[in-house]
């Protein structure tokens, strides 16, 4: 299929960004979205090879930078806003798992980076998501050190509880939730971790402290408040639900009441 792409180009964090329009041809419907971008980049590199064009001020800013790594939907690196949706038009997939069969020959596709105050652009479609690391550093762990722990089977956990904890633990930290939220809130991300640990006896011990610390850090880093629009749930590639936000709210409230 042949496509027209409108791609956000931005030289660095400080530069002004703009859209550039490109055409790509003969894209296989079995190719992934990122493979389509690989082909675009091969094309832009080939154009960039022509020094005359570059000297004449050819618009091409070289290959498009975008984050990607595992290309199987688990590392959470890829992060594109495609036609106005985080990770594009398919449900429950990351951009790397989106395939071109979801588009039609002749389509125009708009590609932007995540847009959230907490995720400044580094270049083109690449954003800085260190804020998510910082939120987890504030308390997204169980305080155990290596060694000196009980036998794995010494802590029985009901099947359903373990499964529900796993639902939250499936978060890949891609940032789609905050990028989608009109308030730029990272609530679903924070909730997934807090709730997952709160469901386990190992995590309960520090539950109150964790909820408070992570929420405070999220606020400090410029993420907005949650107003229950559930947009995050709609766009989460791992189908993490707002039930976890409800559990976070309970944990947070209980913690505050204890104060």
């Amino acid at each position, binding site marked *: 299929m042949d496509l027209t792409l409108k791609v956000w180009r931005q*030289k660095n964090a400080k530069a002004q960004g703009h859209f550039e329009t490109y055409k790509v041809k003969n894209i*296989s419907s*079995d*190719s*992934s979205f990122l*493979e*389509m971008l*690989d082909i675009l980049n*091969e094309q*832009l*590199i*080939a154009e960039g*090879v022509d020094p005359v064009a570059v000297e004449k001020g050819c618009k091409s800013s*070289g*290959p498009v*930078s975008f984050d*990607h*790594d*595992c*290309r*199987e*939907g*688990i*590392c*959470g*690196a890829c992060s594109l806003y495609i036609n106005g949706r985080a990770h594009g038009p398919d449900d429950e997939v990351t951009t790397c*798992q989106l*395939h071109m*069969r979801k588009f039609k020959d002749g389509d125009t596709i708009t590609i932007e980076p995540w847009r959230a105050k907490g995720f400044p652009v580094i*270049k083109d479609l*690449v954003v*800085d998501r*260190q804020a*998510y*690391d910082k939120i*987890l550093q*504030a308390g*997204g*762990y169980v305080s*155990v*050190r*290596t*060694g000196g*722990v*009980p036998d*794995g*089977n010494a*802590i*029985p956990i*009901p*099947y359903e509880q*373990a*499964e529900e*904890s*796993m639902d939250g*633990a*499936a978060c890949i*930290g891609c940032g789609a939730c905050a990028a989608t939220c009109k308030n730029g809130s990272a609530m679903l991300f924070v909730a997934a971790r807090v709730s*997952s640990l709160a469901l386990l006896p*190992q995590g309960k011990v520090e539950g109150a402290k964790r909820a408070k610390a992570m929420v405070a850090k999220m606020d400090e880093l410029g993420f907005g408040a949650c107003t229950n629009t559930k947009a995050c749930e709609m766009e989460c590639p791992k189908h993490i639900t707002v039930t976890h936000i409800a559990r976070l709210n309970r944990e947070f409230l209980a913690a505050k009441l204890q104060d």
Partner: protein
Amino acid sequence: MAEKLISKIPEGPLSEKWTKHKSQIRVVSPGNKRKMEVIVVGTGLGGASAAASLGELGYNVKVFCISDSPRRAHSIAAQGGINAAKNYQNDNDSVYRLFYDTIKGGDYRAREANVYRLAEVSNNIIDQCVAQGVPFAREYGGLLANRSFGGAQVSRTFYARGQTGQQLLLGAYAALNRQIAAGTVKSYPRYEMLDVVLINGEAKGIIARNLVTGKIERFGAHAVVIATGGYGNTYFLSTNAMNSNGSAAWQCYKKGAFFANPCFAQIHPTCIPVHGDQQSKLTLMSESLRNDGRIWVPKSMEDVMALRAGTKKPSDIAEEDRDYYLERRYPAFGNLVPRDVASRAAKERCDAGYGVNNTGLAVFLDFKTAIERLGEDVIRARYGNLFQMYEKITDVNPYKEPMMIYPAIHYTMGGIWVDYNLQTTVPGLYAIGEANFSDHGGNRLGASALMQGLADGYFILPYTIGDYLAGKFKEPKTDINAPEFAEAEKAVTDKIAKLFAVKGKRSVDSYHKELGHIMWEYVGMARNEAGLKKAIELIQALKKDFWKNVFVAGENGEFNQELEKALRLVDFFEIGELMARDALNRNESCGGHFREEMQTEEGETKRDDENYMYVAAWEYKGEDVEPELHKEPLVYENIKIATRNYKD
């Protein structure tokens, strides 16, 4: 130089070696730990667990990763599970049995003492991860669940749906985060190590590129730990993540660390087949699927043709017309034979013309029997996310029609040579996880990579590195203004300038793809003398052409993914050549290394224990000079060497 290959395997009975060794190695006092610095490169299971554990001990740790967050290291993608000898299933598992299965699975090319230690600490790993809050699968009674993996007749694999690697890595990453918050670990995301710095022959730091600004920076320490994974991406198409690379390990090799068994690469039998030229990577379908999936191709050529023409669907083929070739050839293990055996068997059927898919390069992995026996809900609970992933990629519903799979490069057993302490031939330089060579011999068993990464990082390295550091606590912090740092930094900046200066016409990726084709064709699933010699010639010619015709877009002082790829590819050329050289030297078939000249009448691997029961450790001798081969003999005192048999 042979004296450099001292494995330092402790004396005494196998089961007492590690305990005895731990009691004899030195420790560093808490006050002195605070004065010492350790660099850890890589944040997968090995790197993250090591950095966290070293931080907890009180060392000052600097941890580097090329991703935007430590959590994205490729361990995250491991699906199926992690082995441990807990014997929770009461199926007569034991430390010895896990050790034995691993040695046998590796086709008798791994070190006994290392593997025994691995099996020994496997149980601690499960306990550790549970304590961290890793949500392992549970039975209804609340206890931990297990499943089976290839190469074992017991159920010893612990798992968290099809995302075990993710959950274990998030556990290690959480432990790491705790130390970052505590200030014992400083994290450097989006940094790539481009060289290791040696002072008086000892590792004292690294040169790294800040991937956001392009700045080349110097970092000093008392010791350096390499945890940067394997070099499977030499083949371009593999199940590895796009950014996984062998460059950090390769710089260590060029600075004097020996590189062991480079030809041992694992080809995983169950990957989604190649769809065409636009393909950028291959996706694995977990080995755990072989618990319930049955592998087959049609018995008759007529059905093969009908399938390819689309006039028949796989579900139209009657039971008696299917060739469940693994069950036929290996009745004792059936669909759960080790990966190398399953991969070659798939290749054998496809080479004979019975492959499916329009390419003829695929076989079926079918859940029909299991769904009939257990119901769709049970299968969904076990493998739901894998089935969803398969459908998203191929547009085929695996609950209705079988999956199509084909072998692909997945893991490298070879790596930096290390002694029992996980120290390389360079003092102060350590290698852990997939980056080292030590535990998997010629073939790694499923669910053992996670085990090894965490064993090294949580329970082995933090002890053994203390023995080295105990002799260094009087040394001041490393001076990054030393001439050795300046020299290494200059070499790096020169190399980058040289890449930009080529200004040719071909993209970096086009070269990488071509290298991948050479590797897959001649250094892939079947290798022979003529092909390997040809591969070496082709790779050398390609490398030469690269330095004349490559075009690296952009400049150094910016976020530049083309430069990142070019720097990695420069090393992949050389790694590929050494792999071919090692494969040429190893004139036997063992594990994942199959030399066509050396096979039994039934087409199974034929080892040559008399001549090749050794670790091939290669020493770098300079640019375009042939490396020197050193041999570490493998001594089996506790296991009777036998031909691997998965038939009876």
